[in-house]
C-alpha cells in the first residue's frame, strides 16, 4: 500500500512537471517565427547602417512572469520615444 502511494505520488509529480514545462515553453519555438539569437543579431547589425540595427532582449509582458524574446529596430524605438516625449510635452503644456 505504501509502495502504491509512493508510485502514485511519483506519477503525479511527473504529470505536474510535464504540464509546467509545457506551459513554460517559449511560444513559436521551432517554428518559422523563431526570434534571432544574439549571435545572429550581431552578425546582421555588423552589415547594416546603425539606423538599421536591431536589438533583442528578454522582456516580461504585463501579467506574466515568463520572459519573451522581443526584437525591435533601433530606429523604431527612437521614433516611438520621440513621439512619446512630444506627446508628454504637449499634455504637460
Amino acid at each position, binding site marked *: 500500500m505504501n509502495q502504491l502511494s509512493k508510485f502514485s505520488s511519483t506519477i503525479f509529480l511527473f504529470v505536474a512537471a510535464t504540464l509546467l514545462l509545457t506551459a513554460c515553453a517559449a511560444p513559436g519555438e521551432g517554428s518559422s517565427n523563431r526570434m534571432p539569437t544574439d*549571435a545572429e543579431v550581431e552578425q546582421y547589425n555588423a552589415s547594416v547602417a546603425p539606423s538599421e540595427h536591431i*536589438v533583442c532582449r528578454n522582456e516580461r509582458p504585463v501579467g506574466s512572469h515568463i520572459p519573451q524574446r522581443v526584437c525591435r529596430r533601433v530606429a523604431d524605438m527612437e521614433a516611438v520615444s520621440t513621439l512619446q516625449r512630444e506627446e508628454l510635452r504637449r499634455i504637460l503644456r
Partner: protein
Amino acid sequence: MRKALSYSVQSLFSLTLALNSAAGIAQGEGDPNAWIWPNNFAHAQLEQLVEEGKLALRNNEIISAERRFSEAIQVAKVNYGLNSAEQIPALELMIETLIAQGNWDAVDSQLEYYGWLNRLSQKNNLDSYLSGLEGMSRLLLTASANTNNPRSVRYLIAAKNLNWNAVDAIESVLGKNSLRLTPWLYNIVLAHYYQSSITKRRGMTSYEYKSDDEKIVSGWSLRKNESMRISYSIGNDLLERIRQIHQNNPQSIPETEGLILVYLGDWEILFGNKTRALSFYNAANSAFIDSGVRQGAVNQFFAKTTVLPAETLQIQFAENGEENRLEFVAWSPNYVATATPTSQQKNLIPVEPEYNALVRFNLDSLGSSLRATESAARMVIALSDLQVISSTPDNSFVKDLVRNEINLLQFRPKFENGMPVGKNNIEMEYRFSPAISTLNITQHESTQ
C-alpha cells in the same frame, strides 16, 4: 600694351621662382640638392618610399615616416590607379603612424578610406578582401589598445564587426560550413571576452561602452548583467558553431572535437561557470580517447599552464611539454590582465611593456569526475601562495600591481585521467604597462 604683357610675364616668372624657393624651403634642409620634385610616375619609387618610411619608424621619426608613406600612396595611385590595391601596404603603415601620434580624426578618415578601397578593389577576390579585413581589424585593435584613445571601445567593436563582415563574405562564397570560418569566428569570441572584461570594470557600464552608434539611443541601454549575458551567449554559440562546422566537414581531424570541447570549457571558466567547465573538460578527455589519443598524451596536453582565453584556436592535437617558465605579455592597460593578441605582433611600431616581474604561484584545482555523480560535480580553481620573486623596477608599488593583475588571470586547470589536479610552483614572467590613472594616484599619494 606690350609693356603690360612684359610686366605680367615678369610677375609670373618671379611668382614661379618664389614658389620654387618656397617648395625648396618646405622640402626642408635648405640644401639646393634637396630641390628634387617627387617623381610620382616612377613606380620603383613606391617600394623605396615604403622602405624609407620603415627606416624612419625604426629611428622613431614618426612624422617623417608618415610623410614617406603618404608619398608612397600617391605614387601607387598615379601608377596603378586611384582604386588600386597597391596602396594598401603603405596605407596600413601610415595608419599605424597616425595611431602612434594619437591623431584619431585622421585615423578614422584613413580607415574609412581603407574600407572603401577594400570593398571596391578586392570584393571580387575573396582572399584579398579577407586580407584587407584582417589588416583593418589589426589596426582597429591597435587603436583600441592605445591608452590615449578616448573612444577605445568603439574601435574594438568596429574590429569585431569586420570579423563579422569576413564571416558574411566566406558564407556567401564558400558556404556556411567552410572551415575557413573558424579563425574569424574565434576572433569574435575573443572580442567578446575583451568587451566583457571592460564591462566587468566599475563605471564602464554606460551605453558608449556597448555600442558603435554615434549617438545614444533613448530608451535603450543594456544593463551590466545583460551585456555580460549577451557576450557569454554569443561566445558560446560561436564555439558551438565552430564545433558543428568541424563535425560536418569530412576534411576535419577527429581530435578537433576534443579541442573545441576544451575551448568551450575555457569559455565557461571565463564567465565563472566552473561546474559546466568541468563537464566540458571531462567530455574533451573522453573525445580525445575516442579519437585514438593516448591518455598519457591527453594528460600532457592538460599539464601545460594556459592563461585564458587562449590567443589562437588550435584545431590539431599537439602534445604539450611541461614548461619551465611561462611568459605572459599583457596587452594594454585598457584590457587589464589580457594577453596581447597574436595579430599585434605584426605591428611595425611594437608597444613594449614598461614593467616586468617574475612570479611564482600554485594552482589548486579540486573536483570530481562527472562520470561518477553528475549532480555532485563541483570544481574549484584557486591561485595560492603567490610570490613576486623580482620586479623591474624593484619597488613595492610594482609588486602590488603585479599581485593585483595576476589575481585577475584565469587559468585552464590541470587534468589527470579526466580529474582536475593542482599544480605547484608555476613560474611566470609577467610583462605589463600600468594604467596612467594608477600611476597618477600613486604619485598623488606619495606627495601627501
